[in-house]
C-alpha cells in the first residue's frame, strides 16, 4: 500500500477518534456548565421567593416572582424533617409545539402560616437531545473540514514531498553494485530527502568501489598466483623432457608437478568462493534442474561404470528455480563429484530423487565421517588427500546466493545430500 494512502487512512482514523473524544468531552463540560448556571438562577429565585414570603406572610405567585406563568408550583405536605433543597432535570409535554421541553427544577420547603409547602420552580433549559445534536453537528463540521485538510495535504505531499521520494525509490530500484555508473546526488526541495539521497548515493558509490576493488583483488590474486605456477609447471615440463632417462629425477619432478596442481586447484577454488561471496555471478535465470541433472548423470555415467556404481535417477516432479547457470553447473558437478568420490567401491550406489521443492542425492558410503560442519572450508575426510576440502563450501556458497538450502546427513551406510528451495 502506498505511503500516502497509509497516511490518509491513519489520519482519518486518528481524526475520527480525536473528534469523538472531543465531542464527548465537550458535551459533558457543556452540560455541567449549563446545569451550574441554571442552578445558580434557580437558587436566586429561591432566595427571592423566601424573602418575599417572609415579607408578605403568604405564598407569592409566579408573576410576583418574575417568572413565566406555571413555572412555580406549591404543594402542601407533611414534613418529615429531612427535606433539603434539590435540583433535578425534567421534561414536560408542550401542547403547542407537540414536543417535550426540558426544565431544570429546584425543590425546597416553605412554611407559611404554619403550613408546609414543597415549592418547585422550573427553569427552561436546552434539552439534552438539542445539546447532543448541537455538539455532533459542530464536530461533524470540524471533522469534514479536517478531512478536507487531510485530502488537500495528501495532494500536496504527493506532488511536492512524495515525488522526490518516488524518484529516489526508482533510483534505488535501478542501483546495482555491479554497475560502473557513478551515482549522482539529485538535490530535492525537502531537506530530509536530500540528506537521505546524499547518504544513499555516498553509500552506493562506496559499495561499488569496494566491490570493484574486491573483484580486482580476486582477479589480481588469480593472475599473480597462476602466473608463477605456470612458469614453474612449464619449467618442470621442460625438465621432464630433458631428464627422460633419469627415473629418480622424473619422480621428484612429478611430485613437484602434483603439488603445483594442488596449489593451483586451491587457488582457483578459493577465488571461485570469493567471487561467489562477492556476488559476481548475478545472471540468474529460471532453470529446470531436472535437465541439468540428467545431463550431469550422462556425463558421469562413464565414471560410474568404471567404478561399478549403480546410478538411478527418479523424477517425481520438475524442480524449477532461479539460479546462475554457470553456478548451477559447478554446484551439480561438485555434488556428483563428491558423491562419486565417497561412494563405496563394493556394490556402490548413487540415487537421485527430484521432487518439486527438494532434490536428494543418496550414495552408499564407507569411510571416515568428517567431524563438524561438512560445509566448512577445509573440512574433509582425513583419508582423502586428493580433496581440497572446498567443494562443499562452494556448494553452500552457491546455495546461499541462489536462495537454496543444502544439508547433509548420514543414515546407516548412506550419505544423503539434500537441496531444498528456501521457504519450502
Amino acid at each position, binding site marked *: 500500500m502506498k505511503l500516502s494512502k497509509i497516511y490518509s487512512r491513519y489520519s482519518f482514523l486518528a481524526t475520527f477518534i480525536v473528534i469523538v473524544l472531543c465531542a464527548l468531552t465537550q458535551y459533558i463540560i457543556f452540560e455541567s456548565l449549563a446545569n451550574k448556571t441554571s442552578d445558580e438562577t434557580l437558587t436566586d429565585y429561591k432566595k427571592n421567593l423566601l424573602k418575599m414570603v417572609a415579607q408578605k406572610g403568604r405564598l407569592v405567585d409566579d408573576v410576583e416572582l418574575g417568572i413565566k406563568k406555571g413555572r412555580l408550583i406549591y404543594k402542601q405536605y407533611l414534613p418529615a424533617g429531612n427535606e433539603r433543597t434539590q435540583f433535578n432535570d425534567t421534561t414536560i409535554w408542550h401542547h403547542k409545539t407537540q414536543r417535550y421541553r426540558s426544565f431544570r427544577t429546584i425543590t425546597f420547603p416553605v412554611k407559611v402560616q404554619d403550613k408546609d409547602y414543597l415549592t418547585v420552580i422550573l427553569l427552561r433549559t436546552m434539552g439534552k437531545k438539542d445539546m447532543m445534536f448541537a455538539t455532533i453537528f459542530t464536530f461533524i463540521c470540524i471533522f469534514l473540514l479536517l478531512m478536507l485538510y487531510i485530502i488537500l495535504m495528501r495532494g500536496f505531499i504527493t506532488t511536492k514531498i512524495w515525488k522526490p521520494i518516488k524518484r529516489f525509490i526508482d533510483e534505488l530500484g535501478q542501483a546495482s553494485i555491479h554497475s560502473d555508473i557513478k551515482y549522482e546526488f539529485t538535490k530535492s526541495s525537502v531537506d530530509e530527502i536530500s540528506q537521505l539521497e546524499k547518504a544513499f548515493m555516498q553509500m552506493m558509490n562506496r559499495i561499488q568501489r569496494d566491490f570493484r576493488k574486491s573483484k580486482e583483488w580476486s582477479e589480481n590474486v588469480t593472475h599473480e598466483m597462476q602466473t608463477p605456477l605456470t612458469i614453474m609447471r612449464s619449467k618442470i*615440463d*621442460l625438465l621432464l*623432457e630433458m631428464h627422460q632417462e633419469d*627415473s629418480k629425477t*622424473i619422480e621428484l619432478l612429478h611430485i613437484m608437478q602434483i603439488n*603445483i596442481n594442488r596449489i593451483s586447484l586451491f587457488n582457483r577454488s578459493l577465488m571461485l568462493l570469493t567471487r561467489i561471496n562477492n556476488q559476481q555471478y548475478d545472471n540468474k535465470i529460471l532453470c529446470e534442474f531436472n535437465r541439468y541433472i540428467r545431463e550431469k548423470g550422462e556425463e558421469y555415467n562413464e565414471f560410474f561404470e568404471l567404478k561399478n556404481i549403480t546410478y538411478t535417477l527418479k523424477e517425481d516432479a520438475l524442480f524449477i528455480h532461479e539460479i546462475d547457470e*554457470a553456478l548451477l553447473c559447478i554446484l551439480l558437478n561438485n555434488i556428483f563429484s563428491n558423491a562419486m568420490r565417497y561412494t563405496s567401491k563394493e556394490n556402490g550406489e548413487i540415487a537421485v530423487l527430484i521432487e518439486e521443492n527438494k532434490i536428494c542425492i543418496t550414495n552408499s558410503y564407507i569411510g571416515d565421517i568428517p567431524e563438524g560442519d561438512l560445509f566448512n572450508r577445509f573440512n574433509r575426510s582425513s583419508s*582423502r588427500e586428493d580433496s581440497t576440502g572446498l567443494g562443499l563450501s562452494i556448494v553452500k556458497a552457491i546455495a546461499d546466493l541462489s536462495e537454496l538450502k543444502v544439508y547433509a546427513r548420514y543414515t546407516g551406510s548412506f550419505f544423503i545430500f539434500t537441496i531444498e528451495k528456501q521457504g519450502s
Partner: protein
Amino acid sequence: MKILIIEDEVEIAKSIMTFLKKEAMTIEHVITLKDAKDYIQMYEYDCLVVDIALPDGSGLEIVKEIKDSYPDTGVIIVSAKDTLEDRVRGLELGADDYLVKPFHLVELNARIRSILRRRLQKGVNEMRFNEITVLPDSHKVFVNGNELILTKKEYALLYYFMVNKERILSKETIVDHLWGDTIGISADSLDFVYTHLRNLRKKLLSVGCSDYIRTVYGVGYKFSDES
C-alpha cells in the same frame, strides 16, 4: 608452421618456445600488444598464442583484429582468468581455444597441433606413427590398414599420445586432457586413466600393433617406439 606467442611473462614464453622447438615450428615472441599488432601486420602466422593480460592492453584486442584480417590464423588464448564468462568472451571473439593457466606444455602442444591440423591439412588430414594411422576428422584409427574401433576416450588418449610422442605424459596431465575440470585429480580419476589405457593397449595389441605405450614408473606414460 609459424607461431607467434604474445605473452608478457618472458619465462612462460621461453618455456613454450623451448618445448615447441622439437615440433619443428618457427616461433616468435612479443611482450606487448603494440608489438603484437606490428608483427601481425608484417608477418603471416599459422597460430597465435595470446595472453589476455598484457602490459599495454587486453590480448582480446589482438584476437579480434587477427580474426577480422586473417580469419584462417588459429588463435589460442592462455589466461589465468578461468570463469565461464571469460572463456565465452574469448571464444566469441573468434579464438579457437582457451587454455587456463597454469597449463601443461604437452596440453598446449596438443591444442596447437589440433588447430594447425584443422587449418593447414585441409582434405588430407591424417597422422601416422609406424603402423598406426589416425584420421582426426572422422576419429578413425587404422592399424596396418585395418580399422580399429575405439571408444571416445580411448581415441582421445591415443590421439594425445600421437601428438605428444616421445614425451612423458603424467597421469594427472592425461586426466586434465580427458576430463578437464569435470572430476579433477583424484585417486578415482587416476584409476580411470589406467582403465582406459589398459583397454587401449589391449585393443592395439589384439590387431597386431606393437606396444608403444611405455610406463614411466610412478609418473605416467610415454608413447615411443624406442624399447
